[in-house]
């Protein structure tokens, strides 16, 4: 049916029947989001959410970004949340919209990212009847959310949204799903947004226990080989400043997990590098040989502690500060658990230390630093650069050099490139290193970059990826064109699923089962097909000029297909089942 321009405009601005009375569920939802300060949503429309999209169309304060796959909608909102500290919001339709979003939700859940995901649902009278595009969203997402809600009555909607945001951002943050049946999004109700919400069943502890903190202070002062181990919790809790002050006051060595990079400046001499499966030699040795471990906002993940029996052989005392009681003494028994908000606990620790005036034994500390200095001499991250073949480590080092003086966000996919980025890019500030650590989801890199660029339009946003990972959400190159998202994609193309190949080389007799990437596209042509700039880099001498050119094109999305050494491995490596001191240190050790 042909419509004139005037007719289309009339239809677009037509008021719903209810406009002069109460708002409908969709309008209520939009008003709630505005009340929560939401300015960006990533989403993809579908039958169950058409009324919501109608309400979004009729306003212009919230910008909706149309992605090309629901998985990317959730990843983009996730990346936005990680970089900004705000709650990320995504909107998807029922059935396949939800199932496509599941990977994104689980990714956010494993890294405790504050998000609200709104999912459409079939009308209430159709639920349970195998309706078109119906799925049990609450059931499917239950294990991968902090909480979820099915709104059966439009009069409950505003309070549900208020609770959802509160749950998402307080305590240990996490994703919350709000499932809204189509008829609920159309029914009307008076709108009232509560100014606060009290839940008798949910009251996260903020202040640490005074007695525990006092005991911790005593242990810190009596330590002879102390070590500060910090993770994503410091970043989520916005406690980087307190951490820096504490570590500098005490003069202790400090390490970050993969998720905590940037909480303590990498260039600081007190920083020993990342620890864990691909951590530095000195970081892992210190973990095993310290006598007092202060764990802040980290959860003793299996990638960090290696073989648990080996880890427990050392008789170190452990002080563990975490907002989630269930993270404490889960894998490793601790001596002084302190449940509370990381920022508040560190502030209290600092206050008591300053009051005390006593300081740790300077001689013992000097001896400990001397030992650490010996470990540092191993120079475990050294690699043999080459003039003929591009080393992936060199690419990251060059990228770091060219971007370190600007506000730069580095997103990553999953695999060897992720480890090299974590090892060779020095993060000085929190919320600059954005990657999927807990779930390890390939495909997040580009959507993360998209989400961050919207939060930080003036910053440089670089996605470090591999030719395997980038193909998982490749279609988002289209979104980047639509919204002029000028991110830089640096693909370390080694023609292998590198991390898998490395494990197959070390543990599966070099039987490279399905880890070779065959039939790769011409990435330059692909980038250009999507309207972007594509560059292929094959020679080491071209790496820096190509990166410079990419960064110079500040208003274009640039895709760099960097052909790297296919057989380079990530070192050090703690193989599965080994203790953290049993690191492999490079090809010489094979």
């Amino acid at each position, binding site marked *: 049916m042909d419509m004139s321009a005037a007719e289309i405009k009339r239809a677009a601005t037509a008021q719903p029947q209810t406009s002069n009375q109460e708002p409908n569920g969709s309008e209520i939802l939009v008003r709630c989001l505005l009340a929560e300060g939401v300015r960006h949503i990533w989403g993809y429309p579908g039958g169950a959410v058409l009324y919501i999209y109608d309400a979004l169309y009729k306003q212009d304060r919230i910008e909706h970004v149309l992605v090309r796959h629901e998985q990317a909608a959730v990843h983009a909102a996730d990346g936005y949340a990680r970089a900004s500290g705000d709650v990320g919001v995504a909107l998807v339709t029922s059935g396949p919209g939800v199932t496509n979003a599941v990977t994104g939700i689980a990714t956010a859940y494993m890294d405790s990212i504050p998000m609200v995901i709104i999912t459409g649902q079939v009308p209430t009278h159709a639920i349970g009847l195998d309706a078109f595009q119906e799925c049990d969203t609450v059931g499917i997402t239950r*294990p991968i959310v902090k909480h979820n809600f099915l709104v059966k009555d439009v009069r409950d909607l505003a309070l549900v949204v208020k609770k959802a945001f509160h749950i998402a951002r307080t305590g240990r943050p996490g994703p919350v799903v709000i499932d809204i049946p189509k008829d609920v999004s159309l029914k009307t109700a008076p709108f009232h947004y509560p100014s606060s919400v009290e839940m008798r*069943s949910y009251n996260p502890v903020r202040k640490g226990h005074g007695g525990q903190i006092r005991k911790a202070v005593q242990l810190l002062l009596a330590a002879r080989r102390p070590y500060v181990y910090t993770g994503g919790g410091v970043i989520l809790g916005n406690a980087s400043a307190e951490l820096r002050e504490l570590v500098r006051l005490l003069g202790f060595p400090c390490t970050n997990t993969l998720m905590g990079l940037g909480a303590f400046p990498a260039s600081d001499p007190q920083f020993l590098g990342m620890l864990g499966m691909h951590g530095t030699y000195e970081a892992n040795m210190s973990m095993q040989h310290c006598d007092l471990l202060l764990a802040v906002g980290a959860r003793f993940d299996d990638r960090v502690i290696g073989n648990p029996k080996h880890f427990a052989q050392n008789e170190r005392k452990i002080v563990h500060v975490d907002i989630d009681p269930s993270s404490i*003494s889960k894998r490793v028994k601790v001596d002084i658990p302190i449940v509370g908000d990381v920022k508040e606990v560190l502030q209290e620790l600092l206050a008591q230390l300053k009051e005390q005036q006593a300081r740790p034994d300077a001689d013992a500390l000097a001896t400990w630093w001397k030992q650490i200095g010996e470990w540092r001499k191993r120079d475990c991250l050294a690699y043999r650069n080459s003039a003929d073949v591009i080393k992936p480590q060199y690419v990251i080092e060059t990228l770091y050099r060219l971007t370190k003086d600007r506000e730069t966000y580095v997103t990553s996919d999953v695999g060897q490139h992720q480890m090299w980025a974590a090892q060779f890019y020095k993060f000085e500030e929190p919320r600059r290193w954005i990657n999927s650590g807990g779930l390890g989801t390939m495909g997040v890199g580009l959507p993360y970059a998209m989400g961050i660029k919207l939060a930080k339009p003036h910053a440089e946003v670089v996605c470090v990826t591999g030719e395997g990972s980038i193909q998982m959400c490749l279609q988002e190159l289209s979104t980047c064109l639509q919204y002029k998202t000028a991110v830089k994609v640096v693909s370390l193309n080694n023609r292998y699923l590198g991390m898998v190949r490395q494990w197959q080389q070390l543990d599966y007799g070099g039987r490279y089962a399905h880890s070779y990437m065959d039939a790769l596209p011409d990435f330059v042509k692909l980038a250009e097909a999507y309207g972007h700039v594509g560059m292929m880099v094959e020679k080491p001498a071209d790496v820096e000029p190509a990166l410079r050119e990419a960064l110079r094109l500040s208003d274009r999305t640039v895709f760099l297909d960097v052909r790297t050494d296919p057989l380079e491995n990530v070192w050090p490596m703690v193989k599965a089942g080994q203790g953290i001191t049993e690191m492999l240190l490079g090809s010489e050790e094979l």
Partner: protein
Amino acid sequence: MKHIIAVLLENEPGALSRVVALFSARGYNIESLTVATTEDPSLSRMTIVTTGPDEVIEQITKHLNRLIEVVKVVDLTEGSFTERELMLVKVRAVGKERDEMKRMADIFRGRVIDVTEKSYTIELTGDAAKLDAFLVAIERGAILETVRTGTSGIGRGERILRV
């Protein structure tokens, strides 16, 4: 070691599913689980019987507390408590067996609530051990059918679980 955990939760749809999903997702054992509303219709109370080493029980309690709808969790086994369970047992009671079966029920202070020519249905309440003992005491072959509610527990005296 066997632990009896009492949980107060918001009486909202799906709350029971969340607890069961938690146990199955994390591989915790459920020996029995029973739940019903309390005198406050906004609250449900659940009793879970589980076994495991202390570290696992500690994790279970922490994870239960983490659930948004859970208001309070108490491990009854850590203090003095009492437990009760209800069982209905249908037994074969033919001819000379009938007297003996009735005597058994009396000894265990059970009540016969259904009578046919060939069977009795006996209602029995007590702690789980007593119910187990009854099933052992009567002849195994005589048991036609049993249904148990699972254990409900409550703290003794001043040990009160409320919101």
